[in-house]
């Protein structure tokens, strides 16, 4: 069963399309990573899913319903980001007990345990927390609510490395205990890669690709060698990235070489190397094929 289905989804702000003709589905009980650069439309998309924003065009259903202003969708999801706001009069412990009233699957044991583990003072007020502490607290709410659809928008903002690590582990353990659909947005893939089952990559408000994380490893391949040596192989392939290092050229291309072709490449003296998923994402979402180097080449 698909929790989220959308087709041709578009969100326009003035003349800018924050989300542009986006079509994808997210299946139940999977952890999906929503990856994209800043301004790729991640937050806009997530807020449309959460029912906060109204779509401009296209179709979107969450739990088979249009999410905008829909109580039946709102009941089943929680949206966690660093701008979650709470009444200033409430202490952290009061916020947690309030949240418990809203979510039928609320897990008090986890909420209290994590609050204690991360040394958050129950009597503290949310607005006095540091950025990282606030993110940690919001994450606790996201975990303990155990909503069928849990959305984390850049959840680790401000957290230090140790807390981030704990967060990912807590997220995973809780997911194993109670599988549910989780969307985790980030501009960086490498940290969350292991947690994910699927990746949805956005670029300029459009879908660049959606793949199981394992396939993303095979998605691209790096070739290095003298340019003339591999010229014959790259006539009809997508070049994602290229870089000149002396006489040797390094290019990253989509990996749709057949087995025999791979062997021939190997024999031709061109070195074939896998490309890290993180790099794949960077190349796919880059403005142009040459990366930052292009800017400097042109000015020469």
């Amino acid at each position, binding site marked *: 069963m698909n929790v989220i289905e959308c087709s041709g989804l578009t969100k326009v702000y003035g003349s800018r399309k924050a989300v542009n003709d986006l079509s994808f589905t997210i299946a139940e009980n*999977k*952890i999906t990573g929503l990856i994209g650069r800043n301004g790729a439309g991640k937050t806009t998309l997530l807020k449309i899913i959460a029912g906060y924003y109204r779509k401009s065009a296209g179709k979107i259903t969450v739990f088979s319903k249009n999410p905008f202003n829909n109580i039946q969708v709102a009941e089943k999801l929680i949206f966690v980001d660093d701008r979650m706001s709470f009444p200033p009069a409430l202490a952290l412990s009061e916020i947690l007990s309030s949240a418990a009233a809203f979510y039928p699957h609320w897990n008090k044991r986890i909420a209290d345990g994590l609050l204690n583990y991360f040394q958050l003072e129950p009597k503290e007020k949310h607005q006095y927390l540091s950025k990282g502490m606030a993110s940690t607290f919001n994450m606790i709410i996201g975990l303990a609510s155990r909503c069928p659809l849990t959305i984390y928008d850049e959840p680790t903002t401000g957290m230090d490395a140790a807390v981030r690590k704990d967060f*990912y*582990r807590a997220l*995973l*353990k809780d*997911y*194993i205990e109670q599988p549910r659909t989780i969307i985790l947005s980030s501009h960086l893939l*490498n940290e969350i*890669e*292991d*947690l*994910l*089952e699927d990746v949805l990559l956005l670029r300029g408000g459009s879908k660049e690709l959606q793949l*199981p*994380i*394992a396939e993303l*490893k*095979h998605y691209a391949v790096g070739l290095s060698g003298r340019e003339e040596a591999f010229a014959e192989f790259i006539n009809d392939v997508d070049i994602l990235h290229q870089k000149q290092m002396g006489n040797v050229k390094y290019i990253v291309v989509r990996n749709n070489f057949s087995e025999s072709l791979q062997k021939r490449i*190997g*024999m031709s*003296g061109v070195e074939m*190397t*896998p*490309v*890290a998923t*993180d790099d794949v994402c960077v190349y796919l979402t880059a403005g142009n094929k040459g990366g930052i180097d292009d800017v400097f080449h042109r000015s020469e």
Partner: protein
Amino acid sequence: MKLNPDGMKPIYVQIAEWLEAEILAGNIQSDEKMYSQYQLAEMFTINPATAGKGLNLLADEDILYKKRGLGMFVVSDAKERILEKRKSQVLKTMVMELVAEAERLDVSEGELLEMIKTIQKQKREESQ
């Protein structure tokens, strides 16, 4: 073992290899129950689906077998199969790379075989 997320091998392959190592080292005996995908997910902080993929990889190679409702178990001749597989696959690719490199360096077939023999001899002497 520590997973290497920046590494070139997919995580599920790394998981499969780690499980093979566990079997080879005798940490998990024949016909014993293999870790579940959730145990693996927790051990390595990875998505259970990824862990499952690692297990399935071994099942596809008949190193593990499924018992309905009970999980994955190690086949009785798992060690042999692993060794056989590594011979046929791992060693073969290594040799292929070796041959390609030798060609690049203009090393003749005879020279290459000679080098291999020398190294084998050295190793034998060292271990004695």
